[in-house]
């Protein structure tokens, strides 16, 4: 990142609670942050609730952003935290039995050329909240099991077993859809 950019100036205006700047920032970031919300939510309406909470947090806590690192990265962390507290209210994370894990033989490039982002999103949303949360944090956000166990107040073993279950379910869905595409083409 170099010097002062238009975007930094926009963030500064938002720090002064300028509504026009807030509206601009919202327009720039909301579609991508909504993508994050959709991954953690079970459906669009939950995702909208999380996005709303997130932007209220972003604009009320923006004073804490110190221009170290990207603003979008900071905003994403706010969204993830809002998603976690949204589901902390009504869902608990349980340990599940360890399962034998075997990875798919499909190549990611082949799968991604046959299955759309929206379809992948639907598969994630069909997971139970606890599997979805751990999978998102580990596979997409890149947190370690140790970090996840602290964030969710669960043991590392629970985090690992939830991840295995999530992977297993997603693998079944991906292979089923990919297989049906291959037959029909």
């Amino acid at each position, binding site marked *: 990142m170099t010097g002062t950019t238009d975007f930094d100036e926009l963030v500064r205006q938002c720090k002064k609670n300028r*509504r026009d700047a*807030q*509206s601009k920032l*919202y327009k720039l970031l*909301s*579609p*991508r942050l*909504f*993508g994050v919300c*959709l*991954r953690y939510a079970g459906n669009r309406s939950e995702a*909208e609730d999380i*996005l*709303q909470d997130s*932007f*209220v947090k972003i*604009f*009320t806590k923006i004073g804490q952003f110190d221009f170290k690192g990207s603003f979008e990265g900071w905003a994403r962390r706010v969204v993830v935290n809002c998603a976690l507290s949204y589901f902390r209210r009504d869902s608990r994370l349980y340990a599940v039995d360890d399962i034998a894990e075997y*990875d*798919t033989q*499909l*190549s*990611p490039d082949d*799968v*991604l050329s046959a*299955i759309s*982002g929206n379809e*992948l*999103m639907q598969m*994630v949303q069909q997971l139970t909240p606890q599997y979805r949360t751990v*999978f998102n944090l*580990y*596979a*997409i956000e*890149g947190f*370690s099991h140790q970090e996840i166990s602290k964030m969710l107040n669960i043991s590392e073993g629970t985090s690992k077993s939830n991840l295995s279950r999530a*992977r297993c379910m*997603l*693998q079944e869905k*991906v292979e089923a859809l990919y297989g049906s595409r291959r037959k029909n083409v």
Partner: protein
Amino acid sequence: MTTNNIDKIFKSGLENHSAEVPELVWENVEQQLDGRSSNRRVWLVAASVALLLGVGAAWLSTGGSQPEPQTAGATVDTTMAPQPAPAQIDYAPNYADSAVYVGE
């Protein structure tokens, strides 16, 4: 760390996923920033008020035997009562309080 293919598929497919956001979300954010409650909450409160008024009206139309000071509840048209309850209800002392509370 992520060498798992399923992880790779979902990470590359969804990491930068974006989607169109309904207008209502920004309106709700603005309202919350202004210190007002969101539309959803307003509707929830409105629905609760309507319910309490209905219950209060039902109670007034049937069990008016207990003399209680009535303010907001007394102005409710008792013919609006949704379901006339059986006469002689003497176990519902809180409805009157609720009706007064809701009136503010």
